[in-house]
C-alpha cells in the first residue's frame, strides 16, 4: 500500500455509538468489543500519524428537527425516533479519543445516510488528493461500513475493510460480513497489517 494515495475513512466514531451512554450504543451488542474497536483504531491512527496517509472522519449528524429524514421505516426512522446524532447534542460529537489528533484528521460533514459519499464532499476530497485506496473503519459493519465500501468500489477505488476496527450489531454479523460479504468488493485486513503495509510503502 502506498501511504500517499491511501485514505483512512473513519465512519460513525461518535458518542451515540461508542459512548456507553450513547443512545444507540446498545445497538452494538458487544460493548467491550466496541471499546476494543475504538482502541485499536486510535492505536492505528497514532502509528500512522507521521505518515503521509490521509485521515478523514465522516460523522453523521442531523438537524434538530430531523427534516433530512423522509424515510417512514428502517434504521433512519429509528435514528430519528431515538433522537440520535442530533446536531448540538453530546451524542453527535466525535469520540474524545480523536481530539488529540486535531487537524490531522479531516472532518467531512454532510453524511445523513448510510453511504459516506452521498451528499458529502468525500469523492471530491479523495479525488483532489489523488487517493486510489480507501481503508474503512468504524460503525456499523452491515450498514454504513458496507454501504460506503460498496460505493468506493463502484467508484473504482481499491477498498480495504478493517476487520478489527469495525463494529457490528452482533459478532455473527461481523464474522459473516468479514468472511463472505466484504470480499465481494474489498480486501479484509487488520489494523496491524495496514500499519505494516503502509509503513513499508509496499503496494
Amino acid at each position, binding site marked *: 500500500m502506498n501511504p500517499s494515495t491511501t485514505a483512512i475513512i473513519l465512519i460513525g466514531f461518535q458518542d451515540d455509538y461508542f459512548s456507553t451512554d450513547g443512545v444507540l450504543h446498545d445497538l452494538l451488542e458487544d460493548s467491550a468489543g466496541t471499546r476494543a474497536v475504538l482502541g485499536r483504531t486510535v492505536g492505528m491512527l497514532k502509528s500512522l500519524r507521521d505518515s503521509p496517509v490521509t485521515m478523514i472522519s465522516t460523522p453523521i449528524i442531523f438537524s434538530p428537527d430531523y427534516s433530512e429524514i423522509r424515510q417512514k421505516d*428502517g434504521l433512519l426512522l429509528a435514528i430519528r425516533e431515538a433522537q440520535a446524532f442530533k446536531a448540538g447534542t453530546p451524542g453527535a460529537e466525535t469520540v474524545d479519543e480523536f481530539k488529540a489528533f486535531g487537524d490531522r484528521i479531516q472532518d467531512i460533514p454532510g453524511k445523513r445516510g448510510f453511504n459516506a459519499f452521498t451528499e458529502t464532499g468525500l469523492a471530491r476530497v479523495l479525488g483532489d488528493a489523488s487517493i486510489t485506496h480507501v481503508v474503512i473503519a468504524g460503525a456499523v459493519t*452491515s450498514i454504513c461500513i458496507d454501504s460506503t465500501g*460498496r460505493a468506493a468500489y463502484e467508484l473504482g477505488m481499491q477498498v480495504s475493510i478493517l476487520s478489527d476496527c469495525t463494529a457490528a450489531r452482533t459478532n455473527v*454479523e461481523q464474522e459473516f460480513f468479514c468472511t463472505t460479504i466484504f470480499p*465481494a468488493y474489498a480486501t479484509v485486513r487488520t489494523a496491524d497489517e495496514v500499519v505494516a503495509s503502509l509503513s513499508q510503502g509496499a503496494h
Partner: protein
Amino acid sequence: MAATGSMNSTAMVMMGLQHDHFADDAPIRSMLDDSDRIDTVKGQVLNAAAELARSGVSLIHVPIAFEPGHAEITQSVGILSVIKSLSLFEMGSMGARPIPELDSLGDGLLTLSGRTGFNAFRGTNLDEVLSDRGVTRILLAGASTAACIDSTARIAYELGYEVVILHDCVISRTHSEHELFCGTIFPQYATVQSADEFIKPDEQ
C-alpha cells in the same frame, strides 16, 4: 404488510435476469444458489411480474452488461473482477442476453441499459424513470441478494423510496446468506415479503 401505497405508484425492479445468471449452463450458476432454487426463483419472478403488471405495477428490468473486453471494470478484486476474468455479461454475447421467458411479459416490461456495477441507479436513468412514473415504492427481485439486490435497495432507501424485497424472488449465493440478509440485514431499510404476501396481503 407493506401494501399501503397504490399499485400505480409501485415498480417491480428486476435485476440481472440474464443467461449468465439463470441459464442451465451459466458459468456462475455453481457460485450462486442451489441449482434447483435458481429455477424455482425464476418461475416465481415471472409469475409475480405477470400478476403485478395486471394490478398496474410498472415492470423494469435492469440487466448488467459490459463492452467486449470489460474496460469498464478497473477493479482488481471482488465480484466485478471475477465477471471480467470470466468474460461474463459481455454485450452481444449470449450470457448478457435477458432470459427468453421475459418475452412473455410483453411490451409493458421496460429494460434499462447502462448498469456496470451492483447498484441499478448508477449508470442508468432508473431514478428519472421512477420519478416520471410517480413511483414511490419499489419491489426488488432477481440476482443476487448480497450484491446487486442489496446495493440497489440501500440506494433506493437513501433516495427516499419505500423498498420491498420479494424474498422468494431473489437468488443468493448460499442459504445462510439468504437467511441472514432476509432475516436481519434487509429489515434495516426494507420490508421483506414473499410475492404472495405482497400481492394478497388479506389472505395472509
